[in-house]
């Protein structure tokens, strides 16, 4: 009987050895907003993607629990019934639906230094966003050439280019390389089915120019197929879009997600996410097999 006095102590110890329950953090409800992205393609084509934002905690394979992209998710959040218009120089053009969530027009005139206004109305959710962007003058490479650099173990690709910078203004540039396999348009043209995708985006500003006002860049990088065809795209972009892309690059990389501060992406969309940009790129096609 006397031993019973130890029972409460034993029970307490047994209870105490249980791992304590984690505490759930309640986050505020987030309002669903429209997210916008745009691209200008030579041939007076402007494409705008329209989708909904969604909770970071939804049940999908691409939420914060998993970084693997699930294409079925894409369809779920695409806005399929938006009225998308673009206005510039007194002209207003309504974009047609190219595919779910993507609206396009082939009648946009690329007029340098003109202001382009975007208006998107989503009739289903009753949401409306607006945005403005200035189309900056198109820039061309002053020089651009690729070299294959061979080492004992590997073959690398070196790219050398220069851009003649307009010294009268503050300029920002986006240089992107991608292979045909990465592009829905070029993939069909070059029959690249099964090839590994290669996409690389770099950002430059004009803070470092040489004596004759040129930006010169020499870089080397790894590409899976040394005989691939590379599309090189150069755009003169706005400061706002440069800042958006800088933040975009950081938020996209695992190292920053693990060790860096959270990144807030800037936007020029009024009551929405994303960025409406009207940079007018120049393209070069480079066949690496001929190097």
């Amino acid at each position, binding site marked *: 009987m006397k031993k019973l006095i130890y029972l409460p102590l034993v029970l307490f110890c047994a*209870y*105490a*050895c*249980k*791992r*304590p*329950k*984690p*505490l*759930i*953090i309640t*986050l*505020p409800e*987030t309002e669903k907003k429209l*997210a916008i*992205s745009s*691209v200008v393609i030579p041939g007076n084509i402007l*494409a705008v*993607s329209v*989708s909904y*934002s*969604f*909770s*970071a*905690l*939804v*049940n999908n394979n*691409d*939420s*914060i*629990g998993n970084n693997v992209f699930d294409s079925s*998710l*894409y369809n779920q*959040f695409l806005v399929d019934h938006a009225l998308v218009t673009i206005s510039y120089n007194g002209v207003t053009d309504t974009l047609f639906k190219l595919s779910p969530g993507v609206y396009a027009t082939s009648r946009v005139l690329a007029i340098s230094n003109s202001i382009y206004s975007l208006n998107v109305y989503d009739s289903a959710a009753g949401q409306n966003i607006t945005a403005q962007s200035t189309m900056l003058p198109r820039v061309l490479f002053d020089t651009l050439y690729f070299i294959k650099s061979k080492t004992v173990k590997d073959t690398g690709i070196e790219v050398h280019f220069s851009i003649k910078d307009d010294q009268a203004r503050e300029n920002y540039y986006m240089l*992107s390389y991608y292979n045909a396999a*990465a*592009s*829905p348009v070029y993939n069909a043209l070059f029959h690249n089915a099964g090839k590994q*995708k290669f*996409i690389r*985006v770099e950002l430059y500003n004009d803070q470092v120019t040489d004596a004759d006002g040129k930006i010169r860049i020499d870089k080397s990088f790894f590409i899976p197929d040394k005989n691939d065809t590379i599309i090189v*795209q150069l755009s003169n972009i706005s400061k706002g879009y440069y800042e958006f*892309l800088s*933040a*975009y690059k*950081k*938020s*996209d990389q695992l*190292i*920053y997600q*693990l*060790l*860096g*501060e*959270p*990144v*807030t*992406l800037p936007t020029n969309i009024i009551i929405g*996410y*994303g960025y409406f940009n009207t940079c007018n790129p120049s393209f070069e096609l480079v066949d690496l097999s001929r190097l």
Partner: protein
Amino acid sequence: MQKFKNTILLLMQLVILKSYSQNFTVSGYVNDLKDGESLIGVTVSFPALKKGTVTNGYGFYAYTLPAGTYEIVFNYLGYKAQKHTIILDKNLSLNIKLSESSSEIGEVVIKAGDSKGKQQVQSTEMGKLNIPIELIRKVPTLFGESDLIKVLQLMPGVKRGTEGTTGMYVRGGGNDENLILLDEAPVYNTGHLLGFFSVFNSNSIKDVSLYKGSFPAQYGGRLSSILDIKMREGNDKKFAVQGCVGVIASNLTVEGPIIKNKCSFIVSGRRTYLDKVIRVLTKENSFPYYFYDLNAKVNYKINDRDRIYLSTYFGRDVLSAASNPDDSLNAGINSFVGNFTISARWNHVYHNNKLFHNISIIQSNFKYDISGKVINNSVLVTSKIQDIGAKADYEYKATAKQDIKFGLIIMNHLFRPNVISTQGDITKFLESREGAKIYNQELSIYGSDDYDVNARLKINMGARISSTFVTDKVYAGFEPRMAAKYAINENSSVKAGYARMKQYLHLVSSAAISLPTDLWYPVTKNVKPGTSDQLSAGYYRYLEKHKINITAEVYYKWLNHLIEYREGANLILNDNYEKELVTGKGTSYGFEFMVQKNEGRLSGWISYTLAWSNRTFPELNNGKTYYSKFDRRHDIAVVANYTISKRWSVSGAWVLSTGAPFTARVAQYLMPNPTFTGIDVLPVYTSKNAIRLHTSHRLDIDITYKSRIKSRYKGEWHFGAYNVYNRIQPSIIEIKQNKDGLGYHYQENGIFGIIYSVAYNFQF
């Protein structure tokens, strides 16, 4: 040297010419009768005059009075008071040895405790916490390891960082805004095992003072607090040993005379042994980590006027998982993180008995090495900071009303961050580099005057001029310090103060994780020194009958030229860190309340803090003001120790704290990449630090049993439990799938549930 002394004396005489001619000074050292340790903060009072002073950090006091006969009383908590009658017709040297009061229950101790209680009320110092070392040993802590920093975390205005760690945020400031001095030498890394244990071995510590506002002029160099720790000097009467055998670590302290009553030493060491225990049990090196530290000090009393001290601290955290050639990866990792400090000091009392100096030569090193090996690749990363400097502090007891302090400090800092050595294929991605050698020098001079305007009003006016020399730039700053006390009566007063502080170093660390490998850097041409301006006021009351101190303080602190990291900044091995920094400002304000009882069968304290800490950076959070990560609205600590009998006592600590703020990812959206060749998912975060973790609270207890009381060999068992009611103490934020499989949720998880501990202390 004599010429230098004469110049200082002449200077003092010019300043205080009137008073110098008619008064005499009584001065001396106060020591413990049993072991000869100098006693800091002993009240030296003249009851007839209702005036007095306290011993300084070296146990020295001096008081100047007109010629006459006086009764002088020496009071110190836990010691029997001593009363002497002195005839002051010339300068008088009076060294005192106080004996410990028998603290056993039932014995009446003459009002020794009044000294500390009244000192707090009567001095101009505010925002100062003096932690009795016995208290540190009584407060229950994680794994039963008594820990100075964790006791400080229970004080008002001091908030803890991650659960169980030794992070310390004082009045809304960051961990790097605390200057921690161990026998005058700065300590850069205060934590072992990722901060779960502080580097300070309580057996080797004599006195701890934390200043969080109204800083005396002799202190500077950090924005938010100064933690001044004095090591024990060692028993100069006889050899003594004390130690503790704990669950994961043990320590041993040996002290004794080298020349009886003149020269003594103390050596104190500590080591964890979980690595050894696990190796014996499992026959595998599955926990290849340990830490150790060693404190040593020697002091020599040359004569009544000169004493010298040499003290050192050496500590290491070692992780050693050697590579295994039989393993296909042949992977291994080794690291050590270590502090080393050494200081040599010379105390001298000048012939007029009014002037006292302490001259120190100081060195402090902090270094870490991390090396790893996988297959044929190896990498070694090293960083270090080294300080070498000198300091001269003078105290001049000009008159009965005036106490002057002045001095200078010069410090050379060497920073050697991110030295990298690589071998194998890894060299393609991470090249070896020597790392920059960055030198900078800090020079500061200061002066202050503690002046009794009348019986009720006492003021302390001071200033510090600090400067630093960095490449292409010299920064200098004027730091005024002011404090005033108005005595309402003998046992209550109101005080107000102002202090400006400058900081010429900052800690560059990743915001997402905190590692001992965070790097210290000096200010640069572009990164300006941080500045804080703090106004504080308080009410102080001593309830003589119950031996209870009550303090209530309010403060408002403006912080300028603070640094933060750009969004997305990555600081790991980043020498070009300056580009990742942004500057801004902040404010902290709050109310602190404390009721403390240091005597009797029941002792302890209740503290409450209500505080705000904000930051505004043009380049963060869209320029909007946000809560700093040190913002905690409410903090409550109830600490109690109850002596049940001569053998048994119990202590407990209950703490409650508002959760820390953090930035949560709340939404996301699809975004075609800039070339429209793929789709990414981009995150949407709340505004900075907009979400708060849950309020945390826990109870820790410790039961002490004294196994031997009267024998020379004394033993003491401690049975403890940390987090008694087993509540999560949040330290990790996780994203987990919901139980129903639909969606995810954020949750707080902790490292520790309830942790039992047992420890055995002994001394002989």
